[in-house]
């Protein structure tokens, strides 16, 4: 009985002490990026070291959004600065974000700055860092490159032939594709496969060229490790040898290059008949209207855009700067490898860059689901391509009509909602 009483006293006394502790003046940096624990550590110790007292918290998307919505609804909160992808901000009401045009910082890319306006006339978030998706291969696979193929200018046909050669030589399918539950497969279809084969994403969704694109992907799938439906970070499979040739986000390949830099090569995504499709990834920093200390939050946003902070961020997260910086020579191997591959990809003569989906608002997730579902039905369930595309086309058109989002590159511009042709 006595112990129960003392426990009760503890139960009542402790929270009181802890409530008193909570009132500190940290700026809370509420982020969905730099989530892996070692990246968080680097964010806290290196990137934010000179920025005063910043509490960097990385979260899953669900808690991130729920907490933010709760603070907006309650009208007061503790989040000072938000860090998230363009798509996360696009799903929000722009009025909930503080107008950041007067901060005097922006990215060096007019396209990014335009995206950051979220359809308003001023910056709603500040572009923070960028990345892309590239290919990586184990050097042992290089001997099986098809004759005449240049690894820096592969076509989809050559990639398939290469994967087939490896398959034949090793007896195992060794192409790795991020089709796992946390994998970013939808970005491959939106930013790579569709632009490369159809020169579009929405307009051409169910075109005859799209049927050709999916047929090509099925050919590639024959030489893809079937366990790919469980792969979400291809660095793991590159390191374990389950995949010799892989497609993934630059920061999801980084560990492989950093651990065994001499064993892997990074190279541009392949090209199709309509060019070399590729997609940038853009993260931004923003301030919610409920930020407790607006000045401190704005200072932190400015800090994130300083060239030296951008270089520290690059080291910490493998996301590249969005402002002009002089890159030092001693960057980690993954940064050098990925940076080279991205540079070759974007400067190739047949480059066909796709922009991030814009104007979809909260429907961004549904939009990506159309592509993931199409993949699952055609590739995993083996359904007829034409039938699936005609079926999914209706869902895509409904999303576009509901949001009224106009076409983005590489689709031709539209008046009003982007049509699915």
């Amino acid at each position, binding site marked *: 009985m006595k112990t129960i009483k003392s426990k009760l006293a503890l139960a009542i006394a402790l929270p009181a002490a802890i409530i008193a502790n909570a009132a500190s003046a940290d700026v809370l940096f509420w982020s969905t990026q730099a989530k892996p624990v070692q990246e968080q550590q680097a964010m806290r110790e290196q990137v934010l070291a000179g920025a005063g007292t910043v509490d960097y918290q990385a979260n899953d998307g669900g808690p991130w959004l729920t907490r933010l919505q709760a603070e907006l609804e*309650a009208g007061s909160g503790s989040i000072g600065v938000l860090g998230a992808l363009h798509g996360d901000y696009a799903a929000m009401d722009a009025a909930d974000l503080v107008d950041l045009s007067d901060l005097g910082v922006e990215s060096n890319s007019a396209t990014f700055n335009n995206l950051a306006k979220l359809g308003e006339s001023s910056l709603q978030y500040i572009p923070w860092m960028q990345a892309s998706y590239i290919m990586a291969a184990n050097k042992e696979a290089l001997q099986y490159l098809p004759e005449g193929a240049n690894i820096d200018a592969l076509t989809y046909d050559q990639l398939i032939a290469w994967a087939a050669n490896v398959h034949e030589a090793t007896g195992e399918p060794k192409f790795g594709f991020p089709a796992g539950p946390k994998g970013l497969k939808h970005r491959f279809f939106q930013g790579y496969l569709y632009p490369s084969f159809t020169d579009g994403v929405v307009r051409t969704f169910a075109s005859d060229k799209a049927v050709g694109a999916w047929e090509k992907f099925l050919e590639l799938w024959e030489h893809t490790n079937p366990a790919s439906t469980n792969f979400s970070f291809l660095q793991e499979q590159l390191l*374990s040898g389950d995949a010799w040739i892989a497609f993934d986000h630059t920061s999801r390949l980084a560990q492989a290059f950093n651990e065994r830099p001499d064993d892997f090569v990074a190279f541009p995504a392949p090209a199709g008949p309509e060019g070399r499709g590729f997609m940038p990834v853009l993260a931004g920093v923003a301030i919610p209207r409920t930020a407790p200390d607006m000045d401190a939050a704005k200072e932190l946003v400015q800090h994130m855009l300083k060239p030296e902070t951008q270089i520290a961020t690059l080291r910490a997260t493998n996301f590249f700067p969005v402002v002009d910086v002089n890159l030092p020579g001693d960057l980690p191997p993954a940064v050098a490898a990925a940076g080279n591959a991205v540079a070759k990809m974007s400067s190739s003569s047949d480059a066909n860059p796709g922009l991030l989906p814009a104007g979809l608002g909260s429907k961004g997730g549904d939009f990506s689901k159309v592509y993931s579902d199409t993949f699952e039905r055609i590739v995993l369930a083996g359904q007829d391509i034409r039938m699936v595309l005609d079926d999914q086309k209706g869902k895509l058109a409904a999303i576009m009509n509901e949001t009224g989002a106009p076409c983005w590159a590489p689709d031709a511009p539209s008046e009003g909602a982007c049509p699915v042709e």
Partner: protein
Amino acid sequence: MSTSLSNTSTVRAGRWVYGASVALLCAWVLVPIYLLLVNTLSSPAAVSGFPKSFVPEFDTASLEFFAGFSGMVSALINSIYVAAITMVLSIVIGAPAGYALSRFDFKGKELFRLLILLTRAFPLPLLALPLTVMFIQVGLDDTIFGLALVHTTLAIPFAVLITFSLFSGIPVELEEASWTLGCTRLTGFRYVVLPLILPGITASAIFAFVISWNEVFAAAVLTIENRTLTAFLLQNLDTSPLHLKFAGGFILVVPALVFIFAVRKYLFAMWGIANR
């Protein structure tokens, strides 16, 4: 002769099956924990390499990373506080409810039992938004006590149901006998019933502890500066490199194991009651 022979062989086979089942059940629990330990104490190269070794190489780099991971210790302490408060609250609230359900007849008893279970019927992500808004307005937001309240709500159904069945297992005549010997309802409970159900209370306390220890979503949304270990670590492990996943998982599992180990004798005592 032949019957006794077949009897001994049956007995022997029975023993063998019994032993094999015990070994299988132990392996079921211990092998994953052992593999967790081996991979925690392996270098990154060994973790992603193949074939795997069953002997750890005692590379502590992964654990050292977490030792230097700022906020770990305070998150661990927060987790213990929240779990402890949850434990106490769910027993203080749940045990009387269990007693009432087992000893008294009242209108709406069945409905009450159903309603208690209902708190588990709604997924937390659904409840978290309005709850957080309310907590911010009331001032409970980002406090250990506030989070413990939420976890208590989750743990109470177990506390009520476990204590209800325990109280039901204790004959009311025992209590009545104590009343005839000069006990009041309260002292009768204190000297006769409580000692008998203490092991069961421990069991429901363990449930409460584990529920609170493992809960992620509410903890991630409702605490910011006072994060619990799961909110702090678990939601970020899925995107971390494999060797840190193992080390982080190990760190999350060990305190719960230590706790259960510490209270195990009360648990065995409860099974003793059940066998009585």
